[in-house]
């Protein structure tokens, strides 16, 4: 596994009333890797994502993200005790995501995400979707609207650059010809990829994808694999993904975390997880002591 930890999830617990959706889960995601979060339906994967990206406030636990130099980790406890939510110095920055509202997690900690049910702006064009993603830098360029309304020329340049950036992504997705069509008119697979491109337009350091291959055919899944590998190669973005499609998970991820009923049951390389009896048990829905029998049946 390359690099050092960039995201640390520690003792994360999320309760909804009496239901414990995530129970004391800890794991790390390393810089520049592709990590996967897997588990049966209702295991709590999306809930973990929602906690990381600030949509839910965890009942307990700490979620820390670090930019830049790994020396930033040394001040983690200090930051936690100080009650602040972020700390920046010359070498990097440290964020406590559980203390930040959702939009700041995206804006300041630079964590982008996609959704299990596609959430594109379907009545806006494909290009507009990518422009909305560049809201914060463009807002600054338009002088928080004041200069923009008055027609200061600086903004036009920045907007042109933003369009060019969007065009770059559309070329990558082979969607340039559909740039001016409403996003809701795209075929399903293209919508999934557009949502990823939109998240990437926010310049994230960590990209969280909730079931990006859901509903894709084998060919589209293969394309998705290529896209994700290219994103890591060209932008150095770390990727954390939830996935049921094992062809995606096993092929591209460096590291897999397995959840079942809100509890982490396995954590390691694809090779390790694939052969972990607990994982096999969870997926086949049998108790631990019966795993040996099942393994024998399926011929492992």
């Amino acid at each position, binding site marked *: 596994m390359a690099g050092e930890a960039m995201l640390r999830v520690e003792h994360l617990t999320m309760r909804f009333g009496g239901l414990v959706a995530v129970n004391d889960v800890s794991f790390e995601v390393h810089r520049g890797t592709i990590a996967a979060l897997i588990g049966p339906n209702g295991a709590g994967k999306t809930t973990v994502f929602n906690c990381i990206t600030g949509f839910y406030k965890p009942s307990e636990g700490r979620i820390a993200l670090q930019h830049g130099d790994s020396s930033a980790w040394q001040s983690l406890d200090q930051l936690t005790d100080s009650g602040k939510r972020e700390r920046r110095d010359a070498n990097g920055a440290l964020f406590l995501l559980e203390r930040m509202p959702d939009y700041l997690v995206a804006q300041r900690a630079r964590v982008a995400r996609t959704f299990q049910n596609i959430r594109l702006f379907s*009545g806006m064009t494909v290009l507009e979707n990518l422009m*909305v993603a560049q809201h914060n830098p463009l807002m600054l360029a338009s002088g928080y609207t004041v200069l923009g309304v008055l027609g200061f020329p600086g903004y036009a340049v920045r907007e042109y650059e933003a369009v060019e950036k969007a065009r770059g992504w559309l070329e990558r997705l082979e969607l340039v010809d559909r740039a001016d069509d*409403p996003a809701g008119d795209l075929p399903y697979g293209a919508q999934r990829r557009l949502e990823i491109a939109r998240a990437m337009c926010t310049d994230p350091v960590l990209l969280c994808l909730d079931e990006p291959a859901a509903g894709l055919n084998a060919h589209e899944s293969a394309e998705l694999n290529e896209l994700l590998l290219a994103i890591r190669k060209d932008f150095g973005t770390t990727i954390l993904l939830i996935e049921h499609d094992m062809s995606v998970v096993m092929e591209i991820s460096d590291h897999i975390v397995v959840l079942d009923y809100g509890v982490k049951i396995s954590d390691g390389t694809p090779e390790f997880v694939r052969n972990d009896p607990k994982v096999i048990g969870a997926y086949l829905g049998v108790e631990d002591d019966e795993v040996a029998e099942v393994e024998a049946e399926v011929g492992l």
Partner: protein
Amino acid sequence: MTASARRERSEVVHALRDAGITALISFGLFLPLVGLLTITNMNNELRLTTRLPLLVIFVALIAGVRLLVTLVIRPWAERRRALSTRKPFSIPRSFSRWFVPFAIGFLVVYPFISLAAVGYSGSLKWIDNFGIQILIYVMLGWGLNIVVGLAGLLDLGYVAFYAVGAYSYGLLASHFGLSFWILLPLAGILSSFWGILLGFPVLRLRGDYLAIVTLAFGEIIRIVLVNWVDLTNGYAGIAAIPRPTFFGIPFNTDDNGFAATFHLTFSPTHRTIFLYYLILGLALLTGYVTTRLRRLPVGRAWEALREDEIACRSLGINTTNTKLTAFAMGAMFAGFAGSFFAARQGFISPESFTFIESATILSIVVLGGMGSQIGVAIAAVAMIGGTEIMRDMDFLKAIFGDTFDPTQYRMLIFGFAMVLIMIWKPRGLIASREPSVFLKERKTISSELVKEGHG
């Protein structure tokens, strides 16, 4: 008898029965509304009289229309629908390209057309009742369009900001004698300040809850205006508000008045024409600024907010601030319009700022097509112009009898027109959306994909 003839006969019988039921229901409805009339006689006694002929005309008319709909219009519409796959309606580009400059050109020369056509005193009505009145509502419609049409926040209390603008001008002008040109921006700022003040607690709410709270806010402002007699003079309102001057030159008969300065014979129409150009300028400013805002990041964020708030937050957009700016912008234009209103009337009272005003402005936005500026302008012309024309519809007396007063049936006719439009075009007159930026070609987006917001 052939099968088809038999079917036709049964259809006619069915339609007749249907029309009969309709007649019965409308008789029940209109008997108290139209058939009975209370009149106070000379001795101050309340007398009940009947208007049976009028009632019969109403019921016959409704039953007739119903018969027409079931026998002719509905089968025709069904046949048409079966024949053609419906293409989404959008205004052709050439139309919108020519329409806007043409409309602005027409509005600029409009006072002179009416002067030439009906002379000084005759044109007063055309410039004031039609021109100024409609333009005020165009401006209000465009202002509310930012909040409702672009950001998708249902605001039922928009008139509150109009009132804040009007009272800001009325009070500050009469107490401190500040000029219109200072108070106009000040009124806008004060209104947007109130917009933000209301926005902070309220924008956490969504959909129906937001609508109810804004409705309440509109009422609170009005009731404060009624009851804070020391400041606002209550129901009696504020009278003798200083009228705007032509950059310092008053519109009066004095030697230094407008007419004398420009060597014209005095006419009250001069001021009206000045006010007309003033509101035209303000309305065009509103339209221009809104058009620009739509192409800026804020405008795009407003529309994205209407489409999907959660996705906006995942992209790092501060949705609370974005909603607040929409509220503040909308309120600011209402404040401008309010201070113009106070300057034009010279008198304001809480009566002018009732819920029905909010409802009228909102229906202009909804009828026009949420988000479409041209649509909103057309709807304002139709609704407000329609109200004014209704005052002049004397020919209706030929049908309904001499005592018929068309203005009393304004709301009825409106409601009817509104129902028709909602059947014909449920998303408003111009429902398609223009993209704010394009790579190769600007294509309009059909209304089916565009969301209306959830509050």
